[in-house]
């Protein structure tokens, strides 16, 4: 009964609101839960207050795959949102959906809003730019993978807490001592494929797939069974056997294992810092990820993760004007800086990075800068610009499965990666054939 009354009241309010001003509503579906969601809502509120013609309505739609699934279903049913936050592995799927999306460069041009792809860090813009150099989606929350160290555990093991492992050789030495000192878990990782296959490849300047990691066309093939990949994965398999590496799961489960103090070393998203800062009861540091020092050109630069904003097709021109205005608002350096410093995501424009540096934020919190430095370590090559594989949601899952079989000691690295390539290519071929136009 009270609920009915409440609903009636809400409806009345809604009518009153629409009556008062004829605002155009812009639906924004996203996957930022908890504290990140609060920050995102702040952005929308700020924008809504800054002008009176448009109202951005953020809607939390669950995890990245869930919101993407929901949006695809909604598109098929004809009621897609205006803006959809899509994680990086969904990029190729969105790009191929011509007719379902409006490219951002076109949207901004049509609405006469300023938009300069060069304003973005190349590691960021490269990920979302097509072969002709046009940016198709709007970079929003970008992160990269970082290497975290529990300094207290290092001290306990007789290691220098201010000398985190730079290479995998250093890593082995540290791991041995940590294990000997009785550490319950020496090392763990979140997002194993992102860290140990995708970023690993970029960091060592080797391709993940042909056709410039898939950016050059849908007929790309995976190349993650190269000797270097096999060597790295088989090393991890050895670590697992020796008890130096504890597998935590395919997504961010590793974060909690580091934060609780269980694991002494950890690789995970730059976005994990906020949680660690809040939860860790020990001294820790954030560093660049280790590399194999005998590989020529390593370390190169790492690639991004996170998500970008896609504009869905089939809406009114007026609404698109509002979306463009909102994007212009989001590109402002001070807005970018607030988002970067508030969330731990990477500053995605040069201007925002400069502004944050000048503000003295990094002097207080050096860890916040490591991600940018790692992303811009060198000018990106074809191997480190990013990746774009059709249905990589499924492709990555294939890689994760094969990695799991190595870490569980069920397969050797070579046959697992060969299998990952074979199965991954099947996914690519199916996508190619379904998107043949």
């Amino acid at each position, binding site marked *: 009964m009270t*609920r009915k009354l409440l609903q009636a009241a809400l409806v009345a309010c809604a009518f009153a609101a629409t009556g008062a001003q004829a605002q155009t509503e812009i639906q924004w579906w996203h996957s930022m*839960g*908890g*504290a*990140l*969601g609060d920050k995102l809502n702040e952005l929308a509120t700020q924008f809504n207050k800054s002008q009176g013609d448009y109202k951005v309505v953020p*809607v*939390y*739609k*669950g*995890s990245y795959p*869930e*919101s993407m699934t*929901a949006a695809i*279903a*909604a598109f*098929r*049913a004809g*009621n897609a949102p205006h803006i959809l936050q899509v994680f990086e592995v969904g990029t190729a799927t969105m790009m191929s959906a011509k007719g379902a999306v409006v490219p951002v460069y076109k949207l901004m041009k049509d609405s006469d809003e300023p938009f300069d792809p060069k304003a973005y860090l190349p590691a960021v813009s490269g990920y979302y730019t097509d072969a002709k150099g046009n940016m198709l989606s709007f970079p929003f929350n970008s992160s990269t993978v970082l290497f975290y160290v529990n300094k207290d555990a290092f001290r306990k093991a007789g290691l220098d807490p201010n000398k985190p492992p730079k290479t995998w050789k250093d890593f082995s030495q540290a791991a041995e001592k940590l294990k000997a000192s009785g550490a319950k878990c020496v090392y763990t990782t979140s997002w194993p494929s992102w860290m140990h296959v995708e970023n690993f490849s970029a960091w060592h300047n080797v391709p993940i797939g042909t056709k410039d990691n898939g950016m050059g066309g849908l007929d790309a093939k995976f190349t993650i069974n190269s000797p270097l990949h096999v060597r790295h994965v088989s090393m991890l398999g050895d670590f697992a056997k020796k008890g130096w590496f504890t597998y935590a799961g395919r997504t*961010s489960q590793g*974060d*909690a294992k580091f*934060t*609780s103090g269980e694991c002494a070393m950890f690789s995970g*998203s730059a*976005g*994990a810092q*906020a*949680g660690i800062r809040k*939860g860790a009861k020990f001294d820790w540091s954030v560093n660049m990820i280790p590399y194999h020092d005998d590989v020529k050109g390593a370390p190169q630069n790492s690639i991004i993760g996170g998500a970008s904003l896609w504009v869905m097709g089939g809406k009114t021109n007026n609404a698109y004007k509002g979306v463009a205005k909102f994007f212009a608002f989001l590109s402002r350096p001070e807005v970018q800086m607030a988002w970067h410093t508030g969330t731990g995501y990477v500053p995605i424009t040069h201007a925002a990075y400069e502004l944050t540096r000048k503000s003295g934020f990094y002097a207080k919190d050096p860890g916040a800068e490591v991600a940018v430095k790692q992303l811009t370590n060198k000018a990106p090559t074809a191997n480190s610009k990013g990746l774009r594989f059709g249905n990589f949601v499924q492709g990555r899952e294939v890689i994760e499965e094969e990695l799991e079989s190595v870490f569980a000691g069920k397969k050797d690295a070579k046959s697992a990666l060969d299998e990952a390539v074979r199965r991954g290519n099947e996914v690519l071929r199916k996508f190619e054939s379904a998107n043949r136009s």
Partner: protein
Amino acid sequence: MVENRPFLTFVAHAVLIAGVVVVAFPLWVTFVASTLTYEQIANVPMPLWPGDQFLANYGQVLTAGSTKGSAAPVSTMLFNSLVMAVVVAVGKICISIVSAFAVVYFRFPLRRFIFWMIFVTLMLPIEVRIIPTFKVASDLGILDSYLGLTLPLIASATATFLFRQFFMTIPDELAEAARIDGAGPMRFFVDVVLPLSRTNVAALFVILFIFGWNQYLWPLLITGQESMYTVVIGIKRMIVGGDAATEWQLVMATAMLALMPPAAVVILMQKWFVKGLVETEK
């Protein structure tokens, strides 16, 4: 008892007590965890005796959900679950009892056809045709609504069969008498069939209430907005906490809240529950 064998009786009690303890163990751990702080749970091994966070944790989830994953309050979810369970149960009973009545007490062309049509649905659980069903719901524009949550689940043959079986046992004399009195079919239905079906309806309601409350895959797909989550889905959303550690104390408090209502129904309405269970599956 055929003969008195104290040792065997002792063994029987021992086995049963062991069974009860093993079955209840997860519930106890869940309850204990729901009264602790996160630190107490994370500090292995967690205590096996309740802590003092009962009010804090339950208050938090009921009013504000989890702080890291989904922030939808569990009270809203419980309400949604209740609506779903009641509507599914009542809906199924209503459409089944009238269609069973038609199939048993009338002879009409298509009768066999309709009977078989309903029967076939017994064979395909919603899990099998989930994707196209979702598409239909989205075409009808009933995603994220109570209608979408409940209507597709109302189609089921089990209840129709139960009522059909039961109507077969109603003596023909009653219908004969009604006809002689000049009562029409609906009068007979309301005055005779419905009152006789009371216990069957109650038994069925218990089973279907639990069925509706515990639905998972369908609400998982069809609810996008937090305000439409059922409590079973809410738990799942709390666990996928993104970059943060799962707040187990809150998840466990929600789990307790999610399982208490159907468990209470089973225990308090045990007689009908057993009857419903045994008869629906016959």
